[in-house]
């Protein structure tokens, strides 16, 4: 009981949290793409890494707004999908996804060191696709709005440093599914589920 109480006790520094806190962060995410067959056909796998960062504005130590920018880029091969089989054609292809996301969330007071949170918001997702032997008009450079929701917990390592881990779901319609392998696979969501780690600087 004593140990639990000590663990849950707010450090002295937390008892005087500022009304408004601006906290930059860097993040890394491992994402499993919703378009499993599409990504598997071209890249040989349907999961990959996003790297980025952003800034969080925390109000009254509870509510917060967060802006995040990240980037994914990967090289694969142009492919063809038939009868559930993937055939890669040896023609290099590079895909880049650059999301800009804005979320609003709430941080729960479970303990001064451990702050679970949930958030939801919108994002604008840029997608670029270039291939060898392509005419310029055959490359892709589009941006579409998507939706994002996440939930996790932040662990305060230090008065000025925190580490958060969460799971984020994104839904990005309008880019995949119109043509290409994604149309063959019947997949139209560029989003997916990601496990994220953020290193946050600030109180």
């Amino acid at each position, binding site marked *: 009981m004593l140990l639990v109480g000590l663990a849950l006790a707010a450090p002295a520094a937390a008892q005087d949290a500022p009304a408004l806190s601006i906290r930059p962060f860097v993040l890394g995410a491992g994402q499993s793409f919703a378009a499993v067959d599409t990504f598997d056909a071209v890249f040989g796998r349907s999961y990959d890494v996003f790297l980025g960062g952003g800034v969080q504005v925390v109000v009254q130590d509870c509510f917060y707004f967060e802006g995040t920018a990240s980037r994914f880029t990967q090289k694969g091969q142009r492919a*063809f999908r*038939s009868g559930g089989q993937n*055939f890669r054609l040896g023609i290099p292809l590079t*895909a880049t996804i650059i999301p800009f996301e804005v979320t609003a969330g709430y941080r729960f007071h479970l303990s001064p060191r451990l702050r679970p949170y949930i958030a939801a918001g919108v994002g604008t997702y840029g997608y*670029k*696709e270039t291939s060898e032997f392509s005419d310029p008009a055959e490359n*892709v450079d589009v941006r579409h709005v998507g939706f994002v929701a996440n939930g996790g917990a932040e662990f305060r390592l230090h008065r000025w440093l925190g580490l958060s881990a969460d799971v984020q779901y994104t839904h990005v319609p309008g*880019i*995949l599914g119109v043509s*290409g392998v994604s149309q063959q696979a019947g997949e139209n969501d560029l989003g997916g589920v990601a496990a994220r780690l953020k290193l946050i600087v600030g109180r």
Partner: protein
Amino acid sequence: MPRFRARTIAATLGVAAALVLTLRGQAPDARPFLQIADIGLPAVEEGGAVWNESHVPWTSQARAGRAAGVELVRAGVSGRSYATGKVIVRFRDEVAAEERRSIVRQASSTGEIATRRPYADFDIVRINPGEDAEAVAAGLNLRPQVLYAQAAYRVHATFVPNDPQYADLQWNLRLVNMEKAWDIQPQAGSSITVAVIDTGVAYRNATFSVNLRSFTHAGIRYPALGVQTIPYAAAPQLVGGSGSGRVVAPYDVISSGGNSPFDFDGHGTHVSGTIGQLTNDGIAVAGIAFNVKLMPVKVLGSFWDVIFGTAPSDGGSDDDVATGIRYAADNGAKIINMSLGSTGPPDCATNSNKFGCSPVVESAMKYAVGKGAFIVVAGGNEFEDNDPQFGANPTSVLAEIASRINGAVSVAAVDPSKNRAYYSSTGKYIEIAAPGGTSRGFGRNGFVFQQTFDFNFTDTFDPTVVPPSQYRAPRFDLLGTIGVTGTSMAAPHVAGIAAMLMQQGITDPAAIEEALEKSAVPLSLTGGDSCPPGTSAVAPRTCSFGFGLVDARNALRGLGLAR
């Protein structure tokens, strides 16, 4: 000046299951024909030949680099490919050397200015090959001391064969986007074997001793010529140099392997040329998959086969065709071209044992596809025919079978204007179209040209070729660039592209069919689709063109995630 025949020949040979063609007056000798194989002079190639050093789109360094996993070329975000490891920079003239080095180091920690090349007014900045050259260039472009900076974008000529008659005669290869396809795959099918199930192929030199007796043809009595020595030459543009190993597992089905599959007609040799005539060698014309291995499988006899006694009839029968298909599949053919056919009832799909249907061929085709072979069948030349039993525009039985098998396609023919060739049969069984040529409206430029026998010297029995008074023994050692038309010529375009597609990575026959059909270019229907009465094709297919004109570049290029 290439020779060409203005006559329209029936490029798909009639196959009648129960019909045996006989020649009146022929008295077959027990042994009228003696083959002395492998003894013969090389072919006389009409039209001249010029041998040139060939240029190769991919340098040996690039190939080796790709094989070793070294990335020498990268696709930039601009969409263009660039050579890694360097950036092109033009500094203002007044910028001192030390300042240039400093600017470069600020843009890239690994940047070093190389010694300027003669005749260049720009500098090459060497960077780590792993760096993004476009990003480095973008950083340099922000500096006022830099006039311009760019990645070293790759340039290469679209592969245009140096075969001298390519540009003049081969509208057909440009129609299916072969130049860009060769850029994608310069190997052009080098690991694939294509079986040509046809009249045989001119694949080896020989000399024949033949007792030419008298016969009657087209109502004309031709005199006996006695024992004649008939030269036969391999088509140089097919077999390449001696020992090239290009021709594999040749087989004469008609004699159950007793004879070699010599082509005494020229049809099979011409078809083989579209599939894989040697290309970029400074001679004659080009072929599509010019590095494939060819497998001659003779299932059709010709007029001279009957005279020589090497075939019972002009044409063939379903059992020969089925045996040939099975032989090809069992001996490693991954693509099977069948520029042959026959007309029959339109409803074999619902009753394959009905008279006129060919269940033996259907079974063989399914067997071959099951063994991983992709089959291409000519769609038929009977659009303007009126069969007394099957009516106008009768169904091409073997093409209809192909349309029901995933992994086999039926091919219609188009002319240089991408209109349906006047002869090309139509029906909902047509799956794709390719250039077959036409004798109407385009003159010489409507034909499909490949190397084969000069008919003036082979078809001495044909009064439209050689006056009967000048009848003489044939010779099969004079070859030229000969133009013909037919769905027989259309089919090998698809076979050659399929071979390249299989080498590119699509190894399943059904997937090849799907890739070809999905990448085909839909064609407009001037005057509407010409479906047989009471039938229609389901969109996006048409009775005239199937899914459209085959496009080699689209097929080989495949798909990205989003486009």
